[in-house]
């Protein structure tokens, strides 16, 4: 029983980090119908930025979050202008290839800058944990969960209570209609992409305090993030959060009950099973796909 509760606690905390990282991926897909295969690479980039700020300036990862988010926002905007803008409206496989190309370039570039060895940010709270009777709660994970709640809450407020948010939602529901009522869809798309990448600033910063990382780990992250958004329903923010928590708990359970090798396979199995049995995910709705194309 204790081990079950412990698994649940750890799983939900990991899930909070996953939710933070997946929210940008699902937002970008929802608005632009672009599957950003570079999302994992952006997350690792944010982790490396945090690492540099910590090692060279002694900045605590939590304090560096605003800086990293700002930098990631700028990088997201730049990548949109340089690449994504040109493939929007192209066939979906073309946009997938473009973002895959970006992921490869980022992986190589990070290897040049930071090297291909495993890196980690070690802070005072990295190995600390709180105990509650027989249970324990790792401190870094607790802080991460709080930050995830903060950033996702902010994103929710932005989407639902600001003009920008309404413009983003309008563009995601009906691009043509949004254009007609005066929403500059191109700017909204750039903004969405940049916001989606910026949320990774927070995610990557906290990732660096919990997991070791190197440029090549982005594959593992993108697989996990894709599993999450596919499970929750591509394009749905609440779905992504739910999916993240499910995958987080599932991975912890797999580690505990099946063995350490299994969590690696969990995302891939989830992706295949979900896309075959319920392609729209838990919270997604099937688009009307019929004669009225």
């Amino acid at each position, binding site marked *: 029983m204790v081990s079950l509760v412990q698994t649940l606690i750890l799983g939900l905390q990991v899930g909070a980090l996953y939710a933070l990282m997946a929210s940008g991926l699902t937002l970008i*897909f929802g608005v632009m*119908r672009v*599957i950003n*295969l570079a999302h994992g690479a952006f997350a690792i980039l944010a982790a490396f930025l945090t690492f540099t700020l910590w090692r060279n300036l002694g900045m605590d990862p939590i304090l560096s979050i605003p800086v990293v988010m700002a930098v990631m926002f700028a990088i997201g905007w730049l990548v949109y202008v340089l*690449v994504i803008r*040109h*493939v929007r409206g*192209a066939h*979906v*496989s*073309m*946009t*997938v*290839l*473009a973002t*895959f*190309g*970006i*992921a*490869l*370039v*980022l*992986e*190589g*570039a990070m*290897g*040049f800058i930071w090297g*291909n060895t495993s890196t980690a940010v070690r802070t005072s709270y990295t190995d600390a944990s709180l105990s509650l009777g027989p249970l324990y709660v790792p401190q870094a994970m607790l802080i991460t969960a709080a930050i995830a709640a903060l950033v996702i809450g902010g994103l929710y407020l932005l989407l639902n209570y600001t003009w920008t948010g309404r413009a983003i939602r309008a563009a995601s529901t009906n691009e043509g209609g949004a254009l007609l009522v005066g929403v500059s869809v191109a700017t909204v798309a750039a903004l969405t992409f940049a916001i989606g990448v910026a949320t990774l600033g927070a995610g990557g910063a906290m990732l660096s305090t919990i997991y070791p990382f190197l*440029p090549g780990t982005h*594959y593992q992250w*993108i*697989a996990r993030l*894709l*599993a999450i958004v*596919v499970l929750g329903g*591509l394009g749905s923010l609440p779905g992504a959060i739910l999916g993240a928590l499910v995958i987080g708990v599932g991975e912890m359970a797999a580690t505990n009950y099946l063995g350490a*090798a299994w969590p*690696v*396979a969990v*995302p*891939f*199995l989830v*992706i*295949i099973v979900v*896309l*075959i*049995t319920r*392609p729209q995910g838990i919270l997604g*709705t099937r688009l*009307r*796909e*019929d*004669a*009225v*194309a």
Partner: protein
Amino acid sequence: MTTISGASRLLDPRMQKLITRGLVLVAAVVIVLFPLSPSASAQNTVILALVLAIGASGLNIITGYTGYLSLSQGAFIGIGAYVGAILATRFPDVQPLLWAPIAGVVAALIAMLLGLVTYRSRGPAFVIITVAFLFLVQFVAIEWVPVTNGTAGLTLPLPDWPDPWGNWPFHLALVVLLALSLTMTWWIRRTKFGMGLIAIREDEGKAGTIGVNAPVYKLLAFGASALFVGMAGSVYGYYLSFVDPIGMFSIITSALIVLSVILGGRGTLFGPVLGAFIIQPVNNFANDTFGGGNARLVIFGGLLVLLVILLPKGILPTAAALLEKTRSKGTVGLSGARLNPLDRPLAPAEARPPAPTGRTLLEVRGLHKSFGGNHAVNDCSFTVPEGSITALIGPNGSGKTTVFNLISGTMTPDRGEILLNGERIERLSPWSRAHRGIGRTFQITRLFREMTVLENVVAPLRDFSVRQLGLGAVSGSEAARAEELLEFVGMSAYRDARAGALSYGQQKLVELAQVLMLDPKLILLDEPAGGINPTLIERMGDLIRALNAQGTTFLLVEHNMPFVVGLCDPIRVLARGAVIAQGSPEQIQKDPLVLDAYLGDDYLLEAPSRSVNIPVVERNPA
């Protein structure tokens, strides 16, 4: 003077064909004899390029023809290599090259398993699945230690042939496999099988309604795409004499294969090969000069991005388009030609509807379909008498198109029965229904845009058999029938035009001809008169009458009341997902329920009479 005539001679299609053949021949000779080269590293590059080319040529079948992008094609090289390596280490007395066919078959079977997945997922979902599939295969190779020896990998025996043979056996084996792969690709393109695949790429839902059994087609395509790749993989593993999970299932290999296909030109025969012979030397250069790793990632990632932005169609199609543009400069296209419906009186004026047989062709009983909480079709029942032109009318959102989708099989009902000639069909696939004689058109036309008009009309399949897959795509008797149908709808002048280039009204006529190719008993027309000009509406009415006189039954959805009243009998009126009234046009126009739900109170004041000529009202397409 001579330069001009020289240039124009170069543009001559026959001359171009000759030049192309010459180039292919020279390239083939150079590749076959390449091991004569003294440079061992160049020999190595060509062998790797051959492996890549076979992988790309296979991927071309599913990505180029069928339209499914896969990031896991490299996995089949790895699977082939592993099958070869496992067998070679278990049976040391057998020459490892002999295991190639088995490796190919195993790869093909696993690829078909992946193909099964496409039954449920398309587009972006499928790409994601392929990535997951690749990593899952790698996971199995790592964890299934008793068979694969885990991360340590398997070491194969060294070649047992005499030294002077050098790389020749590897090289020739791969050349033969590439030749077989290209022959298969060429054969597929010119058969019904290939035509079906292209129809699936252009519009999979539509392909089903014209009788293309998409799951079987895709399954075979996936098998074909991996067969020779698996064989090449086993040769490749033997050549390296070592296989391990990290090297064999790297996503970079799959990326290089995709790059080759896109760079050379997907959907072309030689494009993927050309792409592979460009990409592989770049790959080796990056490895030798920059020590591989990061530089290689940046180069290929950057190349992928640039390619997608600057040359999305690839080298061969872009070159062909340029040549075509130069050639057709100054000639007048067909696009401006007027379509004159009065050229030829189509239906004889005395086209009388056939005598009613009294039998029911189609019956719908208690049909239900809801989307979430929205009951689009709610206990809908009606019949279509054999030999009739039955109309289904009703306000927007009353469920007409959903009923059509349920009848044609694009959707399956939640409850209820659909009977064609007394046979229950509501659980059948769209293609089985097409084979049983149901043809349909769409509210917004859905032709295969990249095919020519003639190919569009030839594409429908009246039945399914394995033998049929191998028949020529556009064979004599079928082509003749298709031309006849195009003549019938008045579109024969456009037979070689790209369907996507036609106007909306013209597309409607071609779509009708396409459906007729099925020889359907029942044709469902979704707003045949919507969004087209008055003369064309008249022509459409004539066509329907002429076909009906020959015995074809029609069920049509239409908002143009004068058109409906002049053409149809009986009429079924749909509102909120159920039939609220039915009967002859006269009865319907007076029915208070119909006036209330659809036509409106002032309808009677301007009601068209059946005896006078049909006044044609231009209406907005719904």
